[in-house]
């Protein structure tokens, strides 16, 4: 097991830049996710760590030693591909034992380790089956066992859950976490699914357009997204252009108290979740809005409220007993307004 570090990684294909100056580090035994929309460069980064892509510049370090010149077959990295990439003409046991065979282990040892790995992923009696005879979830477990059994320095998972249906995905997410914790292997996960990244990771690297936008723990990113892209990507509904004032922000002429280090007068973006909006009495409100649309779900009510803050209506959720109509007053607590740099 090792730490993994990507340092100033750049990968270009001709004129196209797939990864631009990416840097992050995963400590030994931790689970780190690269989160981003498709085409953001996350898979290229993973392939560079595995050795399938050579970096245009920058370094890949395992245990603080650069491995740029080491070919994939000597990096000792376990990979679970999105499609699993199980060898179709080999049994489950032969698939899992393949890496051990390449390491010239003797047959008894291979059999023992294969048994052990298949037990760990919860597939104790599928040794003689072929991949085509397994369900999606079982194939996934075999792919995990095959990657883990070689005791890799790092395990790389490329969208490991995307091929599974929703129910199985929830189940496998817990399994993945359990197996990773038990084996203690440093793991790097690539995903476009923010829920997956937030529930599994110790650290998250958010990427967009070939650039690392933010690196942090799930908590940090959830509470303090550093730019409009990250805020939008983690599901903050309202992101509005604003200006910094001495003790807060000004959004479309309305002043709000807010906590920020930015210099007064600078252009920024202000973001807040709809769930942080509060209804206010007539006198305590900070801004007014007009209810223009409504929908009732089983648990709560959703309103579209037209305010002076933005052209598009703001979304407001209330308890199911609370009915709104006409003009209403709204307020926002100072610590709920997130100050973002303009992209």
């Amino acid at each position, binding site marked *: 097991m090792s730490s993994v570090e990507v340092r100033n990684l750049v990968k270009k294909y001709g004129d196209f830049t797939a990864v631009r100056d990416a840097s992050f580090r995963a400590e030994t035994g931790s689970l780190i996710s690269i989160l981003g929309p498709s085409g953001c460069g996350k898979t290229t980064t993973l392939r560079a760590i*595995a*050795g*399938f892509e050579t970096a245009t510049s920058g370094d890949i370090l395992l245990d603080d030693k650069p491995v740029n010149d080491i*070919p*994939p*077959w*000597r*990096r*000792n*990295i*376990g*990979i679970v*591909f999105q*499609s699993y*990439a*199980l*060898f*179709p*003409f080999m049994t489950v046991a032969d698939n899992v034992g*393949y*890496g051990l065979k*390449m*390491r010239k282990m003797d047959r008894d040892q291979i059999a023992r380790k294969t048994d052990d790995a298949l037990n760990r992923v919860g597939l104790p009696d599928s040794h003689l089956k*072929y991949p*085509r005879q397994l369900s999606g979830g079982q194939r996934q477990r075999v792919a995990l066992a*095959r*990657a883990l059994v*070689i005791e890799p320095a790092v395990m790389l998972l490329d969208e490991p859950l995307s091929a599974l249906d929703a129910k199985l995905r929830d189940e496998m997410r817990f399994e993945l976490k359990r197996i990773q914790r038990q084996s203690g292997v440093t793991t790097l996960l690539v995903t476009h699914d923010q829920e997956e990244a937030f529930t599994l990771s110790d650290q998250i690297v958010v990427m967009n357009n070939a650039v690392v936008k933010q690196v942090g723990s799930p908590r940090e990113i959830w509470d303090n997204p550093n730019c409009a892209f990250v805020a939008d990507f983690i599901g903050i509904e309202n992101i509005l252009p604003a200006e910094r004032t001495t003790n807060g922000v000004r959004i479309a002429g309305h002043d709000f108290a807010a906590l920020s280090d930015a210099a007064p007068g600078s252009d920024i973006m202000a973001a807040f979740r709809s769930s942080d909006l509060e209804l206010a009495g007539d006198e305590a409100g900070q801004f007014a809005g007009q209810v223009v649309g409504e929908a009732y779900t089983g648990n709560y009510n959703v309103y579209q409220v037209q305010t002076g803050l933005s052209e598009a209506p703001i979304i407001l959720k209330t308890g199911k007993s609370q009915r709104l109509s006409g003009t209403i007053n709204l307020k926002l607590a100072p610590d709920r307004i997130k100050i973002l740099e303009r992209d």
Partner: protein
Amino acid sequence: MLSATQRNWALSLPAFVIVGLLAVVPAVMMLASAFTSPDIEGFTLANFEKLWNSKLAFQAFWRTIRVAIIVTLITIVLGYPLAIGFLRAGPRMQSILLPMLVFPLMVSVVVRAYGWIVVLSPSGIFNQVLLGLGIVASPVDLLYSETAVILGESQLLLPYMVLSLMASLQKAESNLEEASMSLGANPVTTFFRIVIPISVPGLLTGTLLVFALALTAFATPLLLGGGRAPLLTTLIYSFAFTTFDWSAAAAVGLVLVILALAFVWLQRWVGQKVMKSYE
């Protein structure tokens, strides 16, 4: 209003009649005539007896099988590098290589065989190179030999093998080789342990296709083997137009048809049994 059955028959009838009258009926009549002889009344095996005792026919039979096997082996050995090289090449390179691979399929077999006549003739480039390098003292006479037939047919059928191999390699999941390498196998090991096994279905279809086409090739062996290296197909022709022994030609035809149909059957069987395990 026609019923569906009547309509389907009406649609099928023209082709059915034409192909039936011009292919099925004549072929069956001709093959049946293998059991007749101008000298003998009724059913006879005399023609087959004659073939059995003919050194020429016997040689042609074994030469046909031998040539087909060697041609198949050559196309396999040359086919793998071409198929894999093609799949490894970038999109731009592929758009140049694919026409180079497919174009020969459209070129007349006569033109392709003539190419080998030019290359292998005593004053051709092959002999010039051999003489120039001092490997031989006088030109080698390769033309009108079994070797020439093998070279010509291999060139003729190589694209089919390459296309079959490519089809099965393309169908396989793209990450298998990377998975193998990440597990510690270098590219050479990966080639033998992963690439070769996943190409097995394509290798089988390619082998059967090339073998069947090699068995029934006609113009290439006629031009490159001439009378000196007759195969079953060219033997039919020379029985028909040189010795005018049509019953013997029909008997050779029957042997060839049995071989060809056995292969069609084998192809279907392999298609059903073996391919299933690769899905």
